């Protein structure tokens, strides 16, 4: 039977299961507990689930205080609020202080959909990449989400987890393994490499490689679920192999995954690159399909980008 669970259900259940044997795990919410899916955790462990109301700075501050007591806090809110409203708290009270705090940003980029431009956060990845030593993760499917959340519990460092709450993708087989900081090769190929992060762009990238294949172009596809630290070895390996790269993210390309790849390759293996993502644009209200087209985060744009980098390589 097809797995129809929302990503948030995987997130909450994974923490819930781990918390059965790990009393350090706490969840914190700012009036979005239902949205994040953690009521199941609160039902089972009410003493370790804190809803602080609509107060994101306090949400993160309390998480940092709990971390200093040896707890493993998972504090969640929309990406827009996690990044914009609690950045200083996460930066200083958490990361600068050497405290291990997991901050979960939900509804990333265009998945804010009908909440519109005020809630549509493309800039969080850029902002969070600037926090020294911080790890940034955005899983694209159910299995990798579960594995990466499990690994986060004993991970040595703070994590910003970008989480699309609704829907889910079942991309990987049961025997696939995941490590924070190591990209997964979804499909091998010779002519161009598509490096995608997150569910929206992974789904579009999967369509794009079929469209390219129909035109005789062999595209590799990498799931770069860890945006920082970037798996530079894998990027270099495929830059050498295919000589053409397309990065795909549901975020601002300035400072995002595409920028991270550009920075890395310009210092190692300079390679033609096309960055798919929001290009210095604000968000707007709309459904996912409309927004994919508007921000060129769709398969057609990825295909066009792939052809452009191949042409530049040959040029």
């Amino acid at each position, binding site marked *: 039977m097809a797995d129809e669970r929302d990503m948030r259900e995987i997130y909450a259940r994974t923490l819930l299961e781990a918390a059965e044997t790990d009393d350090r795990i706490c969840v914190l919410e700012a009036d979005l507990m239902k949205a994040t899916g953690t009521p199941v955790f609160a039902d089972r462990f009410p003493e370790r689930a804190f809803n602080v109301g609509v107060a994101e700075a306090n949400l993160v501050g*309390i998480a940092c205080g709990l*971390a200093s*007591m040896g707890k493993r806090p998972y504090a969640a809110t929309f990406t827009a609020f996690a990044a914009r409203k609690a950045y200083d708290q996460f930066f200083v*009270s958490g990361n600068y202080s050497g405290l291990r705090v997991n901050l979960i940003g939900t509804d990333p980029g265009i998945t804010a959909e009908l909440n519109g431009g005020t809630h549509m956060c493309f800039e969080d990845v850029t902002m969070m990449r600037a926090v020294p030593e911080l790890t940034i993760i955005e899983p694209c499917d159910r299995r990798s989400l579960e594995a990466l959340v499990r690994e986060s519990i004993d991970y040595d460092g703070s994590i910003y987890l970008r989480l699309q709450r609704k829907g889910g993708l079942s991309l990987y087989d049961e025997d696939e393994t995941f490590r924070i900081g190591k990209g997964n090769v979804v499909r091998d190929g010779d002519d161009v490499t598509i490096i995608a992060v997150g569910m929206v762009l992974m789904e579009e990238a999967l369509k794009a490689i079929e469209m390219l294949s129909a035109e005789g172009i062999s595209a590799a596809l990498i799931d770069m679920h860890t945006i920082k630290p970037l798996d530079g070895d894998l990027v270099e390996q495929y830059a050498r192999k295919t000589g053409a790269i397309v990065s795909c993210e549901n975020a601002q390309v300035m400072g995002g995954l595409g920028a991270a790849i550009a920075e890395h390759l310009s210092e190692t293996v300079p390679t033609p690159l096309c960055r798919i993502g929001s290009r210095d644009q604000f968000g707007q209200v709309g459904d996912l399909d409309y927004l994919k087209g508007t921000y060129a985060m769709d398969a057609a744009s990825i295909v066009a980008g792939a052809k452009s980098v191949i042409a530049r390589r040959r040029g």
Partner: protein
Amino acid sequence: MNDLDGIAREIRKSTIDQIAHLGIGHIGGSMSIVEVLTVLYFKVMDVDPNNPQRADRDRFILSKGHAGPALYSTLAERGFFPRDWLHTLNKPGTNLPSHCDRQKTPGVDMTTGPLGQGLSLANGIALGMRLDKLDRYVYVVCGDGELQEGQNWEAAMSAAHFRLDNLIAFTDYNKMQIDGTTSDIMEMDDLVKRWQGFNWHVQRIDGHDVDAIETAIAAAKAANGKPSMIILDTIKGKGFSLADGEVGSHNMPISMDDAKVAIAALDVEDGN
């Protein structure tokens, strides 16, 4: 004379000397909190200078992190690190940076600097103590100007909501901030009513009276089911004549000669 007064005087002298060695520092807001630090570290708190990270200790957050020098002199006096560290304040590679840093200084429980973050951290610590069933307290010193930061009032709400009666906070009410008096810049009165309105147990006392501070902490501990705020009426720059009651004392240059005069004056007071 109360022993604690004598210790406070030593901490005050040491703080002046510490900042004078560097030549400039946050003397005003350091001088105003000497008595509360003295009472906490020499009378009230269960801490171990030989094991600063002991898990079941009381905890302290200097939310107004710029007053680090007063805390450093207190910790040195209490034996957390050698007194000669105090002359490294803000020098390259020091363990004593301008603002408090939990990763650098033995005995500093929390990193602070950007104002308004300490009370939220204290909420988290108090909740952590509750989860661990630790019969301990977390103490916080906030500045009065600092309370203009909105995050404090988010934390005020949650502390009352979660009934954090193991959280005891102080406001260093010296009525001055960088650009002027709090009345001129952003009126803080009535602080008692404001905290009562957030459902805290509130007291207002002379912040330079060690006995009053000790008594107020005991009363705060007895206040079941509510976090406590003890508003300390203090004088910015207290005990250092060039800074005493001066708005300009927030961050001011101090020469070694100034320090010698000030320390000598405190010694005379001591002789009385």
